[in-house]
Every structure is written in structure tokens, then in C-alpha cells.
């Protein structure tokens, strides 16, 4: 029996086998390109972004909406300037925190008074109302530990972590209050769950012992306070060394890279019936894939991971680069349908 996208996602999150492996692709810029609308105009419009997500779902067969406009929206809420370009996603500009005194006086942005956040909430409401089916919507919120990379710049933030524990804790406290407000607002607007975007917690970025003092405690404290399911994402960084810790945070899913340096099958095995594993197609490399390569890679990725549910096929980063041709995304969609049907026999 064919399931709806919602049934498919919920079944795999429950560690049972759905009708086929769910697929999540998030080509944020492709709809604007197709419409011929400049990115700055597109990404500032809740209506256009909502319609773009619906169009992408229809084209590429994704089983969930990732309901966000651009990564630096929270940095923008703290006063940052977003840089728009015509060949890539919007990026954060100069840091908004460049002295310790700014942290001392930093205020939590009020969701209802912050236009860029209202823009995202409006988009989620429109998406919920206009989506022609019941595909789940995931909002996105940066972890309090990872947001300072944009607020301060990476270099100053690393120095803060190692040299000024008091101000570090102040900043984390402010960002934590903001995170909870922001996640709850997205759920209230219609999101079914939240992607907790936390690359700094990865051992690629900070050592394990520092993660256990910081990112782990923050996640353990916050995730269960979100009024909906939370999926943790580490933005193409390593996760295996902290996997046992992440499993204690209350997250229901982990988006992983697990490329040449990590074994995704090992990650899946350790996570069986605990969390759902999401990944791990290489979004950068797929620019070059032929249809045959896409089929081969999808087949190889699915093989061995799908057993018992708890697996969603996706890219490694949560955002497909503009330079990836539609034909590759069509091939990933078609290959998922060909090889991902349960019982799997790839």
C-alpha cells in the first residue's frame, strides 16, 4: 500500500518499515532560478518561498518540507546584515559581536517584533495552508552553541570559548532563551518538528571533552523543552565519536555526513531503534553525477541502512547547491523509488 509522505516519515521515525525509504531534498535556490526572480527578492517573500517549496516537492518527490528561508536569519535577528548573491545561498556578513561589552548588554530578540523571523513564520503558515498534501514541515533553529559563529566570527568565538568562560556562558544563556522562543514559534506557526542545526558540537569543530561541557549539556537541556520532535544536524561534520552522547539528548534523528572518514552503517547500527539516521548523499559532488551514477550511489547508500526503518535518504548538508542540475535530482528521486521500496532487495 502506498503511504503518504507524512505516514512514510512517521513510520520510519518510529523505527518501522514504511512503503519505501523516505527522501528529503532541499534545493532552496532552484525555484527562484526557475522563476527568474533575484534571490534577494525571492528569499524576502514568504509567499514565494512557500510556493517554491511546494514546487520543489512536486518536481523532486521530497517527503518533507524544510521550512526555512536562509541560514543566517537568526544572525539577522540579532542585527546582522545578510549578504545576497546570485550564484549561492544568502550568507552572513560582518559579525555583530566584536567586543565583550556587547555580550554583556545583549538582548534576546523578541520574535513578534523581528521582521525577518515573522517572514519565516508567515512562510510556514502559508505552506501549511497551501500545501496540497500532508507532507511534514520541519522548521530550522541554530543551536545556541553554533549561532555565535555568525554572531562573532569563528576566530573570535573560538577565543571566547577558551578564554572567557563567564561571557561564553552569558552568550549561551541568551542564545538558549532565543532558541526556545524561536523553535516554539515555528511549531505554533505550523511546523511539525525542528531541525536543531549544531555543527559546532561536532568533533570536527571542538574536542570531545569541550563538547561534553558545552554542546551536549545545552542540547540535553533544550531539546526536550521544544514542543515537537527535534532532529539534530551537524552540517557535514563528523558525528560518530559523539553519537552515544547525542543519543542522550532526546533527539529523534541525526543528519550525518559519514563520508570517507566515517562509516554510516556503523552509525545506523549504533542508532537502531534509538534515532533515525538522515543522509548521506554528497551535495557538493553531485553536481557532476550522471543519471547512472546517481542510481548507483543511491542504491549503494540505501543498501544495508534501510532495515527496520529509521533511515531517510537525503543530502549531507540540508541545502542542495544551485549548481546541481535538475536532472541529478530527478535521478535521485527515481532511484529512491526504484531501489527504496520495502522489502528492499537492492
Amino acid at each position: 500500500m502506498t503511504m503518504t509522505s507524512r505516514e512514510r516519515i512517521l513510520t520510519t521515525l518510529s523505527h518501522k518499515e514504511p512503503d519505501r525509504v523516505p527522501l528529503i531534498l532541499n534545493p532552496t535556490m532552484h525555484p527562484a532560478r526557475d522563476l527568474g526572480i533575484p534571490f534577494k527578492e525571492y528569499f524576502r517573500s514568504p509567499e514565494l518561498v512557500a510556493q517554491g517549496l511546494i514546487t520543489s516537492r512536486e518536481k523532486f518527490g521530497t517527503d518533507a518540507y524544510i521550512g526555512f528561508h536562509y541560514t543566517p536569519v537568526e544572525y539577522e535577528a540579532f542585527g546582522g546584515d545578510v549578504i545576497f548573491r546570485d550564484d549561492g545561498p544568502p550568507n552572513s556578513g560582518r559579525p555583530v559581536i566584536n567586543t565583550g561589552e556587547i555580550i554583556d548588554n545583549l538582548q534576546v530578540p523578541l520574535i513578534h517584533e523581528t521582521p525577518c523571523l515573522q517572514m519565516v513564520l508567515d512562510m510556514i503558515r502559508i505552506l501549511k495552508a497551501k500545501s496540497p498534501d500532508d507532507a511534514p514541515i520541519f522548521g530550522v533553529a541554530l543551536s545556541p552553541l553554533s549561532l555565535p559563529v555568525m554572531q562573532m566570527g569563528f576566530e573570535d568565538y573560538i577565543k571566547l570559548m577558551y578564554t572567557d568562560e563567564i561571557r561564553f556562558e552569558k552568550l549561551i544563556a541568551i542564545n538558549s532563551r532565543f532558541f526556545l522562543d524561536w523553535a516554539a514559534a515555528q511549531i505554533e506557526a505550523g511546523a511539525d518538528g525542528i531541525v536543531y542545526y549544531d555543527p559546532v558540537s561536532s568533533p570536527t569543530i571542538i574536542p570531545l571533552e569541550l563538547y561534553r561541557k558545552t554542546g551536549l549539556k545545552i542540547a540535553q537541556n533544550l531539546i526536550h523543552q521544544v514542543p515537537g520532535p527535534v532532529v539534530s544536524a551537524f552540517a557535514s561534520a563528523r558525528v560518530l565519536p559523539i553519537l552515544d552522547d547525542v543519543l542522550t539528548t532526546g533527539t529523534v534523528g541525526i543528519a550525518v555526513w559519514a563520508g570517507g572518514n566515517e562509516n554510516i552503517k556503523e552509525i545506523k547500527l549504533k542508532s537502531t531503534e534509538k534515532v533515525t539516521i538522515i543522509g548521506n548523499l554528497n551535495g557538493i559532488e553531485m553536481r557532476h553525477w550522471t543519471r547512472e551514477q546517481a542510481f548507483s550511489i543511491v542504491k549503494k547508500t540505501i543498501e544495508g541502512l534501510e532495515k527496520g526503518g529509521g533511515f531517510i535518504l537525503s543530502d549531507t548538508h540540508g541545502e542542495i547547491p544551485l549548481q546541481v542540475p535538475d536532472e541529478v535530482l530527478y535521478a535521485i528521486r527515481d532511484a529512491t523509488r526504484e531501489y527504496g521500496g520495502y522489502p528492499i532487495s537492492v
Partner: protein
Amino acid sequence: MAPDEVDTRVPDLITALINMDRLTLREILKPEDGTVINEHTIDTLIVPALDEIGQKWEDGSVAISQVYMAGILIEEMISSVIPDIRSDEKNKERIATVVLEDYHMLGERIVTAYLIGAGYAPLRYGRRDVQEVLLLVSQDNIKYLVISTLMLPSALRIKEVTSGLAGKGVKVIVGGAPFRFDPELGKEVGADRVCFTASDAVTAIRELEAMS
């Protein structure tokens, strides 16, 4: 470098750098018996240690925050102990580091620190667009240009830099996240070398120097 030329204090230096132990670092690099950092120390002690830290990041046993702090500490030591190293033989050929278009400066900052640790004196161009890079490289007579990028679109624009520098004798060394995920990207943008760790930039320049 032959194994017997590597200083036996390399493991101690690595431990001190990863633990951010300034006291031990000063004991290793400026011991009381009067030994000072010189070219030999850089080649047999500092560069091997930085290279090993780069390898440890590559294999996942140290984090980028530790790689960064190690570079900063080495830079501090080099600058404070032998500020005149910048006039030595190594800096006949000019080196520049730049972040192309992105606002994410960490990678370039680490590479610069590692180059300084290896005795080089790179010019830091900060964040620049393609035309600015081409102008600066020409004005400063740069021989080795080290470009850091975080975002794929910025990495792809390196092709405009390499095209603009074609036939001018400038060697372009690139690094950053997109290159880690696409092994073909360096060739696609016309780079002379691709780096996966900060210490790779030191190796790349040394190899290119040896070939020139």
C-alpha cells in the same frame, strides 16, 4: 626530510600545542641552554609538529579549534622569539593569503599562522573579490597565492582568478570545505595545489619552490 632529521621533541611540542600549554611551549622552543629557534628548528621541529596536527585533524583526533589555537600559539612564539626571521632566505618569493568573497575567515587565519610557523611571511589580503585579488597579486608581485573558501560558489569563482593569472608565473594554492567534498574541484578551477589541512599549504609551497 629523513626520519633522523626530525627533532625528538616533536611529540612534546604537539602535546603542548594541543593543550595550549604556553609554559611548556616556551620551554621547548626557547630552552635555558641558549638554543633559539632558527631555520633548522623550524624544519625539524615546528613544521613536523604542525604537519602532524594537520594529520590528526584529517583523521578526526583533533578539532579545528585546536588546530587554530596551535597555529596562533606558534605564530606568537615565532613573532616574539625571532621577529627578524621574516627577512630570511625563505621569503624571497612573495606569498599572499586571501578569502575569496566569503566572510568566513577562520581557514585563511589558520593557514597564515601555519605559514608564519614555518618561517614564511605571507601578506594577508583579507576578504576580496576576484578583481581585487588580481590587482593585488600584480601590485605585490606575488608568487604563491593561497585562497581559502567556505562556500561552493566562491570556490567556483577561483577559476576566474586562475584564468586572470594564467601565464604570469603565479602559483595558486586552494583549500576549504568544498574541496574536501569534491576531489575534482581543484582541477576544475585550475589550482596548482589543493590543501586539505593548514599544514598542506606549507608542504605545497615547499614543493612548488623546489620545482621552480
